[in-house]
């Protein structure tokens, strides 16, 4: 349970208890009907306590109908984080050269679509014209460029050497570039959530 939810429930409980406690005043007003000495008196007292608690809790709900939304836990945030993470991370560390190339190509296609859209949204004003937005998009563009360059170097090396040659260096460089692209894309996502 999130902290905001706990605080909200705590407030709701406190409002109910506070309202119920005021029912004790009825003992002073009519001690024959409302008392803790007889079963009937106790029942009357309990009914007043429950009703007063509900009224008080309703007042609290009117002021705070829902727990405050934690920005990092919104549906949009969860959705985007899940999909972007699965999109980028699923492409790393996969064995098999052809599969590696295909996944790299797909990942770079997806990240290009996302970064280009962020640039359009920035220029059209959908995203705020702040230094943070500007820096995040530019960093993502730089990371995308570096990853594409590494992919080009890898492909060129693959064509120029025979199949038994070691491609470890090129693969390591490409993996490193892709690893830098992940956080850059997440930073762009943060702009949409107002985190920049």
């Amino acid at each position, binding site marked *: 349970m999130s902290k905001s939810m706990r605080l909200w429930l705590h407030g709701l409980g406190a409002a109910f208890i506070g309202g119920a406690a005021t029912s004790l005043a009825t003992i002073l007003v009519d001690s024959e009907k409302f008392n803790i000495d007889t079963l009937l008196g106790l029942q009357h007292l309990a009914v007043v306590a429950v009703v007063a608690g509900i009224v008080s809790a309703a007042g609290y709900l009117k002021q705070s109908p829902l727990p405050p939304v934690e920005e990092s836990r919104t549906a949009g945030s969860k959705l985007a984080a899940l999909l972007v993470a699965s999109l980028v991370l699923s492409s790393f560390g996969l064995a098999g050269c052809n599969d590696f190339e295909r996944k790299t190509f797909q990942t770079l296609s*997806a990240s*290009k679509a996302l970064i280009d859209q962020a640039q359009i949204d920035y220029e059209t004003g959908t995203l705020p014209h702040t230094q943070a937005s500007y820096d995040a998009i530019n960093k993502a563009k730089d990371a995308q460029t570096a990853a594409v360059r590494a*992919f080009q170097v890898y*492909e060129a090396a693959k064509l120029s050497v025979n199949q038994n040659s070691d491609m470890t260096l090129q693969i390591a460089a490409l993996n490193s570039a892709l690893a830098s692209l992940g956080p850059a894309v997440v930073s762009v996502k943060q702009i949409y959530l107002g985190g920049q």
Partner: protein
Amino acid sequence: MSNHTTVAAIISTTEEIQRDAAIVLEIIKTTYPQVSDEAAVAESILTILAALVTKALTAYAAASGAPITPANIEGLMPNPMPLTAPNS
């Protein structure tokens, strides 16, 4: 399950989540008018994010069938136009 099918399923789920969220937010706006502004902001963020994710996933799916050629790799470069500086 092919890549294309998986991505199509994710896009469909994304759209479904967006629709459900829009309904929930609409109910919240009607029931609690005092949080109407916040709900409207949440709804617009969700719409933009869903569009963004759908776009990225569509590109991902399209790349599963495209040949990996030097020209296609060059095409993965980001938009070459520089961004407008924040103060201009």
